Structures are given as structure tokens and as C-alpha cells.
């Protein structure tokens, strides 16, 4: 009897141990993530055999500027003595600019997958020298490094404390937390860049920056995607000093312009004049058309073909009878208001001087006028 009791007790213990082992094994398998950080299957406390932390490759912050906060008041740090008011940080403006410079990652480095973390989530209020983690600057250091590094590079005089901080109880500088953040940072833009390329038959490529930004209305981020802040924010005249360099070669232009085949479209022996719609398309954009976006008339960007010079090709409702001639700055009198367009504008060429000879033998424009000049009236477009 006693023997059986003893045996069963041993059996229970043995079963328990086997179970325990099994549980340990399955739980180990279930997590299965050890090798993400460890180099061996069985890391020990003495030798954790850690891999290089993959944090640097883990950054996955891709958010649009609009989803982030607009303005942030940095007020977590109080110095002793507390000299300064909290700092107002225009997050939206910086987030939008970051689209030209590597996106959110520019500031939100080491952001693990998921939501975008604020600086204070990782950087503590005490300095690294006083905290357990020496490698990570404290919040004050992190803020200063993040801001000053770029601002210093672009010559924005941020080494002056007062360019960001307003002193407490100092009436001379308005409090930055209450005042509306103003764009006191100027952007230096070139108008014309002349590139000297290595192409023998036409070394010179002329690039009109102002045409692309003003006339073609390209957003900065359409071309500038991986810039340094100082690329655009720099003291005036900095562009003149440095010779224009071809960075990236054709890659800079090829997203919009075809770079295969006809080299002479861009390459020339001399610098070229800027884009002129009248010369290129024989259609003067002056007045109303100069304010329109190219695509408004030409449609899709890849297909900029010549359009008909006829007004009616676009302005379909401009027919004799319904057309209000005053939009041209010239109001027709009652008699001429009903006359067919082609009677005065021969062959529907509206660029040419109108003629009176279709009806009147002895009259000549502009000596004889079929109406009066008026201040052009805005009518519904198209």
C-alpha cells in the first residue's frame, strides 16, 4: 500500500515537471520574437548577445502636415532662475517645409511604428548627465539641438536667445506665446540659373526658377524633395556667389520634361531667354490669360499641344449676339452689337486690328469707333 502511495506521488511530481517543461517550451515558441533582438536562441543574463538595435531602420512616420498640431507651446522646461517665457513653435509651418526635406523624420527621428511621438515622450526633463541614459539628451538639449542646428546653418541668427525666447517681464519683446507667429524668415530664390554641362554640342542649359514657381505655379515640393533648410533659407545674394551646379543631372528635369532625343530643346551654346508664350505659341497671354494655370487651357501636363487661337474654341458661349464685348475693354454701340464677329475681325483673327471695310468704305479703325472704351467688366469665365 505504502509503496503504491509513494509511487503515485513520484508519478505526480514527474508529470508536473514534464508539463512544466512543455509549458516553458510552448511559451517560448509562442513569443518567437527573441531573434529580433538577440543573436542566439538562448540569451543569458551574463551574455545577452544583443543585436545592433534596429531602431534606426524602424522609423515609419509618414503623416501629412495637416494631421499634426498647428502651434505648440513649449512650456515643459522651467529653468532656475526662470528667465524666459515659453516658446511658441509653429509646427504646421515646419511640417510643411519638411515635405521638401525628408518629411517628419527630419525631427521625429527614431519614431517607432505607429503614431508620431512628441519630443517629450523620449527626452526627459533632466539632462543626460543626470539621468540613467547618458546617450539621450534631455528635453531642453533636444529642443535646442533640433532648432539651432538648422537655424544656425541657414543663418537665421538663432544663437540669439531672444530670437525664440522672450524674456520674462520684458516689455520690449512681445511675448512669443501670444503673438501670432509671423514668417520672419525669408526665402532666397534664384530667378535664372545657367548650368554649364558636359554636353559638347550645347554646354549651356538655362533654367528659369521664377518661371517654374510663378508662371507654371509648381509647388516647391514638386522639385525640392530632399533639401537642406539652408538650400533655400540663406543670406541674400548667396546664389550669385556660387556657380550653378548640376545636381542630379537630368533627374531634376526628367519628371516633367522629356530628356530623350532632342537635346537642343534645353542645351544651347548661349543662355536662353525665359519662357514666352507669345513667341512659342503665337498667342499673347497678356491680360486675362496670364493669370490662368497652364492646365486650365492645355489640360494634362504631359500633353501641352498647340491650341486653336479661336476664342470660341474655349469660350464656347461667346457667340455673336450673346457675347458681351465689354470684357475686352471695349463696349460696342447698339448698331454694332448685333454684327457678326467676322465682319470686323477678318478670318476670326482677333489679334489683328479690326477692319471697317466690310460695311463702310470711308471709315477706319480707330479713327472711327464702333463703340467706347470701358473699364473691362468681369464676366463669368469660359
Amino acid at each position, binding site marked *: 500500500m505504502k509503496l503504491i502511495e509513494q509511487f503515485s506521488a513520484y508519478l505526480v511530481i514527474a508529470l508536473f515537471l514534464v508539463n512544466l517543461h512543455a509549458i516553458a517550451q510552448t511559451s517560448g515558441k509562442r513569443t518567437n520574437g527573441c531573434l529580433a533582438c538577440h543573436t542566439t536562441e538562448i540569451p543569458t543574463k551574463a551574455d545577452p548577445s544583443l543585436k545592433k538595435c534596429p531602431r534606426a531602420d524602424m522609423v515609419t512616420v509618414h503623416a501629412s502636415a495637416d494631421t499634426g498640431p498647428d502651434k505648440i507651446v513649449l512650456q515643459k522646461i522651467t529653468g532656475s532662475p526662470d528667465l524666459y517665457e515659453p516658446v511658441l513653435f509653429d509646427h504646421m509651418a515646419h511640417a510643411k517645409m519638411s515635405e521638401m526635406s525628408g518629411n517628419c523624420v527630419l525631427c521625429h527621428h527614431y519614431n517607432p511604428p505607429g503614431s508620431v511621438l512628441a519630443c517629450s515622450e523620449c527626452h526627459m526633463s533632466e539632462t543626460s*548627465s543626470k539621468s540613467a541614459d*547618458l546617450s539621450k539628451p*534631455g528635453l531642453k*538639449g533636444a529642443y535646442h539641438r533640433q532648432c539651432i542646428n538648422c537655424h*544656425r*546653418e541657414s543663418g537665421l541668427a538663432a*544663437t540669439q536667445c531672444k530670437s525664440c525666447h522672450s524674456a520674462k517681464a520684458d516689455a520690449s519683446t512681445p511675448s512669443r506665446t501670444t503673438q501670432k507667429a509671423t514668417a520672419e524668415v525669408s526665402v532666397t530664390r534664384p530667378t535664372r540659373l545657367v548650368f554649364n554641362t558636359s554636353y559638347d554640342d550645347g554646354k549651356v542649359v538655362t533654367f528659369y526658377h521664377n518661371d517654374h514657381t510663378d508662371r507654371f505655379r509648381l509647388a516647391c515640393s514638386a522639385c525640392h524633395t530632399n533639401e537642406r533648410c539652408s538650400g533655400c533659407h540663406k543670406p541674400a545674394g548667396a546664389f550669385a556667389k556660387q556657380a550653378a551646379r548640376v545636381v542630379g543631372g537630368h533627374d531634376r528635369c526628367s519628371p516633367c520634361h522629356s530628356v530623350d532625343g532632342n537635346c537642343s530643346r534645353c542645351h544651347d551654346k548661349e543662355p536662353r531667354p525665359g519662357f514666352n508664350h507669345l513667341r512659342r505659341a503665337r498667342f499673347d497671354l497678356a491680360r486675362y490669360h496670364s493669370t490662368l494655370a497652364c492646365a486650365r487651357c492645355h489640360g494634362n501636363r504631359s500633353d501641352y499641344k498647340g491650341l486653336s487661337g479661336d476664342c470660341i474654341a474655349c469660350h464656347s458661349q461667346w457667340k455673336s449676339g450673346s457675347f458681351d464685348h465689354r470684357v475686352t475693354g471695349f463696349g460696342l454701340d447698339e448698331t454694332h452689337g448685333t454684327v457678326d464677329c467676322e465682319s470686323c475681325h477678318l478670318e476670326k483673327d482677333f489679334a489683328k486690328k479690326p477692319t471697317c471695310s466690310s460695311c463702310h468704305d470711308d471709315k477706319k479703325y480707330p479713327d472711327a469707333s464702333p463703340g467706347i472704351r470701358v473699364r473691362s467688366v468681369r464676366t463669368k469665365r469660359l
Partner: protein
Amino acid sequence: METRRDFLRTAVVAAATATLGEVALGAASKIPSPDRRGILCDLTACIGCRSCEAACRKEHGLSSVSSLSELGRSNVPERRRPSPDALTVVNEYKHPNGAGSPTFVKVQCMHCDYPACESACIVGAISKKESGPVLWDTDKCIGCRYCMVACPFQIPSFQYDTALKPDIVKCDFCVHRTEKGGVPACVEICPVEALTYGRRSALIEIARKRIENYPDRYRDHVYGEFEAGGTSYLYLAKTDFKELEFPSLKREPMPGTSESIQHGIFAYFVPPISLYSLLGGLMWINKNRQKAEEETTE
């Protein structure tokens, strides 16, 4: 506290023991504590604001000029050395292209692991502490200024304008603060945390990691890790340290060679004994010759 008299007393005793054939081990043979502290100075982060200079002056009561606005920026581009008025100074080095941002270099005592000044000091007024700092003792110093000559970084300065009791002045690692668990004044004030105070071994690890993570930002060189046997101050920079006028030093501790020669030639009292026996021998030969000459003339 030891005084000059104590030193002389110990010196006599030491001389007596040395004659008995015991060679005192040089400072270079001391192995520094693995737990010693250091400061990592990241020159890529430094903005040259001179807050550290101001804080240092204030902490040590050195000069009435201790606010940033009073310090100004006019002398930053000069090449300054630490002086009795300033234990640490920040110098500006223009970008080689002229257009880029300048590099600022904080200069102060490097607190060497094997200090040449300690080795050169004939009265033991300079000593390397277990926790890292190299300290100067006013009660022992006789003002010989050997330490100033010995220092490869030209750090110790002398109060030339003090007539009666001039001091050797240099950075003291703010021991009065660190002993109480604090950090040096310059480290505490730095607004960009270009300075990190901590265990030297941990700082080297951090420096290596930064170089690894940002190879474009840092040159693969931690100045002070091996220079002159290692220093407590460690520097990271983007440019070559030669361009920032850091001395190019070998890995061997500065006192190593000089001490081995000095201690070697006096080992077991051989040179004095051989010198005196040589001179004695010459005298004896001359005396014999004289005697012989006198005998022949007689």
C-alpha cells in the same frame, strides 16, 4: 592636509629608502580606475554660446565678467588658451569653405589618465584622482611651473600678476560639485548638451555609437580615447582634429618614456656609484702619477 614641510620630510625618507635600492614606480604604471568619470564633448552640437565659460567663471569666482552678454563674442575667433581668468575657453574655427557653419572648440584641462604634469611635478602637487580629475594642491606647489612645460595641451596657467602667492590655475573638473553627486558647472549649463558627464567607458561607447549611426556627421575618431594614453575629456567632431588644432599625440602615456629613462638611470643607485668610482679612480691614478713624478725629480 600635507604641507610643504611634510613633503620635505617625506622626500628625505624617500631618498633614504631609494639609497637602499628601492625604485619608486612611475606614475605611468598606475592603472586608472575603470569607474573613472569623463566628459564627452560633441563639437558637432556646440553652438559656441560661451555659457560654459560664463558658468565656469561664476562657479570658481574668477572674474567679475560672468554673464553671457558681458562676455560678448568679439574674442571668440581668437586662439585663446585657458588663463587664470578663464579655466575653459571656446574658440571658433571657420568652415574650410568659408560658407558653412563654424566649429567651436571648448578648451580646458583634458584630465589625462597618465598626466604629464603629475609626472613632471617635483613635489607631487599635482595628482590624478581615482574618479578622473587631475588636481593641483596649493600647499605643496613651489611654483616651478614644470607642469606648464610638461603638459602636451598647454593647459596649466600661472598667476604672473600675483606677486606674493601665485597659483597654478587649471580646470578642476568641479570636484566640489561631483563629490556631492552633481555634474560640472559647464556640463550643467550647456543648452544643447554638447557636454555629457558620466563614466568614461560609457561615454566612449556612446561616442562610438554616434559615429556608427551618423557616419556623415562624425569623423571616425574619438579624440582622447587613446591620445597620450587616454584623457577624461573626449571629443567628437566632423572635421579632422588637426584642423581644429588638437595636438597629434601617440597612444603612449606622456610620462612613460621620460620616467623610464629617469628611473632607469638611477636604478639601484648605479650611475652615482659608477660616476664616483670613475672619478675616484682618475684621482687615484693622477695621485700615483704625481707621486711618481715627484720621486723622479727628487
